[in-house]
């Protein structure tokens, strides 16, 4: 494995008195794909949101590319531009066209000129297989298309790491695969990815490391071949048996 892209050491976080993350230790190597699963409320989304500082951790250390996240705005801004994020609810900007959604970050945050930004945007729209939708509004697209636009929007910032927070949970079943296909392609191209998902087929296909969380703790982590066939902890066995039943 190459040097770590993301490192979490003994990270703790509370929402009020609720201890949402308990001593989280996680290392994501450059180019590595980590899939986090676990029951709802287990803190898996919070881990991802702490990595790009949408949430602040109270103690422990988070390093991205060796830079420690101290919670100050400047570090947070630098780190965020290195890290892309894809949300469950897409969070596209409804008042802008697809193309404008994609070029906003590069133009305003990176200072690219419009022409270059638009070329880049069209390139990434092609990569997520919707080159024809550039001038539409997000609301005119299907859920699967919207999520692919969201992925393209993240890619336009050319991030070192892409975070996915349950990217297919809000989608109709027939649209899940078109999003997962794009994610598999990204994985094959060597993108570093941290994915919170219950799509175990996808996990088996791309994950280098599987992480199971429950009640704010990382209960188990390991290579998918061991993780799926021979989980050590009872909680993980139970969880897997529940979601793999169907």
């Amino acid at each position, binding site marked *: 494995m190459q040097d770590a892209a993301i490192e979490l050491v003994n990270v703790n976080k509370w929402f009020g008195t609720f201890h949402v993350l308990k001593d989280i230790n996680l290392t994501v190597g450059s180019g590595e794909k980590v899939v986090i699963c676990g029951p709802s409320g287990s803190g898996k989304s919070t881990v991802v949101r702490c990595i*790009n500082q*949408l949430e602040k951790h109270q103690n422990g250390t988070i390093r991205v590319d060796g830079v420690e996240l101290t919670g100050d705005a400047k570090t947070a*801004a630098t780190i*965020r*531009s290195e*890290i*892309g*994020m894809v*949300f469950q*609810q897409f*969070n*596209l*900007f*409804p*008042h802008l*066209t697809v193309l404008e959604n994609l070029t*906003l*970050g590069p133009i*305003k*945050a*990176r200072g690219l000129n419009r022409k270059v930004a638009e070329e880049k945007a069209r390139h990434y729209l092609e990569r997520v297989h919707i080159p024809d939708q550039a001038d*539409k*509004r997000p609301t005119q697209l299907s859920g699967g298309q919207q999520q692919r636009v*969201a992925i393209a*929007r*993240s890619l*336009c*910032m050319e991030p070192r790491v892409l975070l996915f927070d349950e990217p297919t949970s809000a989608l109709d079943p027939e649209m899940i695969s078109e999003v997962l296909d794009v994610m598999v392609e990204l994985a094959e191209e060597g993108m570093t990815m941290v994915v919170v998902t219950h799509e175990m087929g996808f996990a088996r296909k791309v994950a280098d490391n599987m992480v199971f969380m429950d009640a704010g703790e990382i209960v188990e982590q390991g290579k998918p071949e061991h993780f799926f066939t021979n989980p050590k902890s009872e909680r993980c066995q139970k969880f897997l048996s529940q979601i793999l039943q169907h």
Partner: protein
Amino acid sequence: MNKIILFLSLFLLASGCSSSQIWGWYVIDPTTPTGWTNVKFLISGMGATIQISLIAAVLSIAIGLLVALPSLSEKRAWRLVNRIYVELIRSIPLLPMLFWVFYGLPIVFQSMGMNVPIDPFWGAIITLALSDSAFTAEIYRAGIQSIAKGQSEAAQTIGLNYFQTMRYVILPQAIRRILPPLANQFIYIVKMSAFASVIGMQELTRRANELVVTEYRPLEIYTLLILEYLVLVLIISAGVRWLERRMGADERG
């Protein structure tokens, strides 16, 4: 709009026919030289009313946004700044605030060694803008908070800073929800600008008061005054509806 004009002309027509002692519509009968002079005198306050209201509204919209932003902060101290401003300003009745600004503020400036005379025009504008800004601030806050949190999170993840997030993501979406209540506030300003008459500003109400003093015909003159405000407010309402339609069209792309 047509109905109003009809109503107004019937009114004036009736005034022409009337010879009763009780009614004195002749004072504002534009078909007679005196009546026409009076009407022109009354309407001549319109420019000042419009100017005061417009400038105060623009200032209030700017100040309101500045006051609203701290209310969205995660830091309690910033939210407190907002709360104190809003609670203080909106609790002051307009007339006392007008007196305080017009008669008191120059003394405050004087105490700081500055000579800043405040004329009725700017006294009225400052008062209206301040008074209204507490309300526009609340309108902004509600409008901005109604935009889903995911929008600003997404903006942050593509590297936009706070002001870029507001400027390019949040405010363009919030403005559609903010605009109708802001328009209401503009109407409020136009009406409250009548208070400027008490510090000597030559606007609509002041003109009416002065004419009443010389003509002793309060009913007729104040009726025309009310109609003048009605016309102003109807014009604003029509303008806002046009703006909303245009923005709606924008939204649909």
